[in-house]
């Protein structure tokens, strides 16, 4: 699997993502600077977390209109796999590659902790190593992760099996606490209509080593590496 990571001013999780991709595929990803309008040939393009352009105007809004994102959109159109994590999810939503929007957390606080993540659809290349209903442990670290879409869009996402992950209680966690940001219908990640674009708020790249408290994120990258060669 050849992969590329898109880097903006203010991106800060690109090295964590590179480590996870290299661990799964045995190859270091290409790092693509936001001014580059040409992407290297890749089976997977990742838009990682951080605070691109300082989250000015709205989280992800500036990056969504950068030249490199046009190339990402074109690649996604051709069927190339695209993964957006955290700020990357916000960017893909702002760019219109995924429906809905990410609002400020309902608590108005930056939330940085482990959450439970239930696999809603286990039948995709992103989730090939997981079972539907399995609850994974991964960290979230965001201020604007409160997924919102109108009721028609939400119903369509559910009908088309495009909810990737939902927040779910970890062992012993109360029903009032497991959703860290107020996301509607507990949505933590969604797919596009063709299933080749995934956006998610939690950080699988920060759950790949035992010293991080969880290795549940490995499966996502392993699934992609298996599917994309």
């Amino acid at each position, binding site marked *: 699997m050849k992969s590329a990571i898109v880097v903006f001013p203010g991106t800060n999780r690109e090295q964590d993502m590179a480590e996870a991709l290299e661990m799964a595929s045995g190859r270091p990803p290409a790092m693509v600077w936001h001014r580059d309008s040409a992407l290297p040939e890749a089976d997977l393009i990742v838009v990682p977390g951080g605070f691109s352009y300082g989250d000015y105007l709205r989280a992800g809004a500036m990056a969504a209109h950068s030249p490199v994102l046009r190339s990402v959109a074109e690649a996604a159109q051709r069927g190339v796999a695209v993964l957006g994590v955290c700020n990357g999810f916000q960017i893909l939503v702002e760019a219109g590659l995924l429906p809905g*929007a990410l609002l*400020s957390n*309902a608590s108005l606080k930056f939330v940085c902790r482990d959450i439970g993540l239930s696999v809603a659809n286990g039948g995709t290349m992103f989730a090939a190593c997981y079972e539907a209903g399995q609850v994974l442990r991964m960290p979230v670290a965001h201020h604007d992760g409160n997924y919102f879409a109108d009721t028609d869009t939400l119903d369509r996402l559910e009908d088309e099996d495009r909810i990737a992950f939902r927040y779910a209680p970890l062992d012993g966690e109360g029903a009032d606490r497991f959703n860290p940001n107020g996301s509607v219908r507990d949505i933590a990640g969604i797919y596009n209509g063709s299933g080749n674009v995934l956006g998610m708020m939690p950080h699988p790249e920060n759950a790949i080593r035992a010293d991080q408290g969880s290795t549940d994120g490995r499966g996502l990258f392993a699934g992609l590496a298996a599917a994309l060669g």
Partner: protein
Amino acid sequence: MRARVHVTLKPGVLDPQGKAIAHALEALGFDGVADVRQGKYIEIDLKDGPGSDGSAGGAEARVSEMCEKLLANTVIENYRVEIEA
């Protein structure tokens, strides 16, 4: 020419900042605040020349396009454009 752009959350979209402001006003003793919705206000000074036909209508159309493409996220926000000659 100057454009004044108001960007506001659509009805039904949760506004936790507006709620926090409402609570703060209540705590300060301001009675009678039923609800607060917070938005953004943007001023844009427009240049004459290419892209402008000098008319207020043309400016409004241009700024509306800016709102659609960048200034507002129309999934969650409405916008209103005023042109000041």
